[in-house]
């Protein structure tokens, strides 16, 4: 299986450190009331970044759930810029500009799994060469959407990679209440497609599994289900208090396997990373997210945009409502 080389591993670690650092900043911004609810990436960095580095950004689509955006740096600066607009609730935060092949976050669990199959099938029909990688959680895998889409993709041999990030929790629900199966990967058997479980704390393993799945997909052999096992190191979201239900021993065990710390340690041993490099990357990451936040904050938000993007253009009724609304907002602002 193709392994990431040293240079790639350095890039992977850099993206992981950036994600972790920016996640901390974002958490603080939320606590200050500056942005909306956030789902922290902590603990998922290796799985997300490792996977994305095995993709070709020019041809391959990524459909995130909601924990991924900070880990998608490889897809370009537009991802973070748009994500910050999204965190402010700005309508433009849903549109990552072309040609970036990243969809906005999906909050309706499981809903983007069938979309991935459709997107992949469309690419096949148009003779495009890429693949679609869809992220979803252990929790989302219980939705009918997952089973229906997995089965359909198997039949169509659609070029899809189903990447289930098993972080042991779905809000407060542990995996043993999510499924009685031995693994999430084992569900692939019912779809007639390959399924494998990889250590999601090890980006190289994820990279290898995704590269292999990508090769299969692009050579017409169809989809693969990959389960990347990690541990959710933070809260479900900023609205959650995990101390109510996460056993502290489990969390401290997981912290010992923290994917970012582990890789830093390993790369330093191999002389591929240093403290100086670390602080340089962290400083740049903070500057970058602060800049993106300022830019997002200064993006004008017109009350008029409230009625945008429902259809390609307003129906007559909508234009009447739009003028009525603008009129009444104008009055109330006086």
């Amino acid at each position, binding site marked *: 299986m193709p392994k990431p080389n040293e240079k790639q591993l350095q890039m992977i670690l850099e993206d992981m450190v950036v994600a972790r650092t920016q996640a901390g900043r974002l958490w603080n911004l939320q606590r200050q009331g500056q942005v909306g*609810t956030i789902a922290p990436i902590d603990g998922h960095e290796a799985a997300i970044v490792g996977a994305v580095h095995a993709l070709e950004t020019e041809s391959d689509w990524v459909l995130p759930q909601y924990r991924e955006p900070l880990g998608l740096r490889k897809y370009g600066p537009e991802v973070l810029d748009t994500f910050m607009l999204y965190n*402010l*609730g700005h309508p433009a935060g849903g549109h990552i500009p072309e040609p970036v092949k990243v969809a906005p976050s999906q909050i309706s669990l*499981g809903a983007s799994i069938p979309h991935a199959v459709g997107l992949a099938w469309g690419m096949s029909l148009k003779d495009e060469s890429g693949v679609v990688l869809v992220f979803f959680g252990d929790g989302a895998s219980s939705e009918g959407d997952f089973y229906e889409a997995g089965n359909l993709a198997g039949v169509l041999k659609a070029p899809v990679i189903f990447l289930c990030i098993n972080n042991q929790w779905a809000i407060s629900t542990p995996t043993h209440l999510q499924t009685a199966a031995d693994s999430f990967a084992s569900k692939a058997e019912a779809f007639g497609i390959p399924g494998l479980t990889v250590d999601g704390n090890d980006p190289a393993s994820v990279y290898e599994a995704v590269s292999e799945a990508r090769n299969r997909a692009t050579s017409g052999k169809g989809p693969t289900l990959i389960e990347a096992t990690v541990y959710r190191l933070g809260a479900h979201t900023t609205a959650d208090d995990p101390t109510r239900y996460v056993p502290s021993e489990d969390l401290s065990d997981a912290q010992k396997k923290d994917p970012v710390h582990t890789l830093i340690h390993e790369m330093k041993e191999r002389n591929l990373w240093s403290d100086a490099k670390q602080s340089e990357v962290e400083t740049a990451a903070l500057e970058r997210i602060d800049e993106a936040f300022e830019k997002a904050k200064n993006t004008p938000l017109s009350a008029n945009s*409230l009625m945008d993007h429902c259809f390609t253009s307003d129906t007559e009724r909508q234009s009447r409502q739009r003028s009525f609304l603008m009129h009444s907002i104008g009055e109330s602002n006086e």
Partner: protein
Amino acid sequence: MSPDNIFEGANEDEESSSESNPSERKLGYGAAVVETMAQIMREDESVFLAGEDVGAHGGVFGYFRGLQPEFGEDRVVDTPIAEQAIIGLGIGAAVQGLRPVVDLMFMDFICVAMDQIANQAAKLKYMFGGGATLPLTITTAGGAGLSAAAQHSQSLEAMLCHIPGLKVVMPSDAYEVKGLLTSCIREDNPTVFIINKRKLADTCHVPEELFEIPLGEGHVIREGSDVTVVAIGRMVDEAKKAAEKLSGEGIDCELINPRTVQPLDIDLIVESVSKTGHAVIVHEAVRFGGIGAEIASQIQEQAFDYLDAPIGRVAAPFSPIPFSPALEKHYVPDAERIVTSIKNLF
């Protein structure tokens, strides 16, 4: 279990009560859900609760907190994330005489479970030639105002009301939560109990013991002679504020809270409109095809001769609910918009 202090920031100023008496016990809207569930589960072994994160976590909004420790994992079931299966589980258990309460975390997720709700729960009695009875309660959190964005803020009651076979209940305060939830669970037909997620901390007087508010009976909150204002769910609070403001300007509002939107107490509304000659309907849901359209239509069928002006509607515009708090403020109807709409009638 101490349901009273679950909801931080309970706002004493916003207290509202159907039958208020300041010396009596007050309870929060969310806390009333837990209290009612616990009391009913103690008296009726056939009641159980199932849903996502309802167990150890007590529901993401906390209104099932304390139930699993008291009633155990078989009667308070944490389910996998599978809304179709959650409703289907309730249906299967209900047809054999249990009284399941199944929870869909956000009302928006009824769409995921719509086959089970619309084609199964609502129709099984009919399909079984009367041979099946479904004492099923679906609880779910609806409503906007928390910046929960387009897929977690909707008020989809009109969709449910359109399906024969479902009763649709929208409590506007903690008193109604207790009385209506009790009725829903004891009801022999499928009910959808819509909990307004922005009301959770609001308190009002709630009796300690279980009591029922009949499904299908509305409530006159305030008598008045000039205009009938029909307000649904949380909009009752906004309509109260509007009525207060207008009384200072010489417009006397009669405020009606239907409490259940299916069945709908149209008699109460028609009687009121026959007296006032004016009607305005207020709901959070999108105006087009909203429950207000049905109410307006029934008013004109039954009280046309009494109407002195077209019927007004205050509701949301025809677009998804914005994530931005600033935009959402303009989207959701409020007292100010109700005042304007009422003034337009005169």
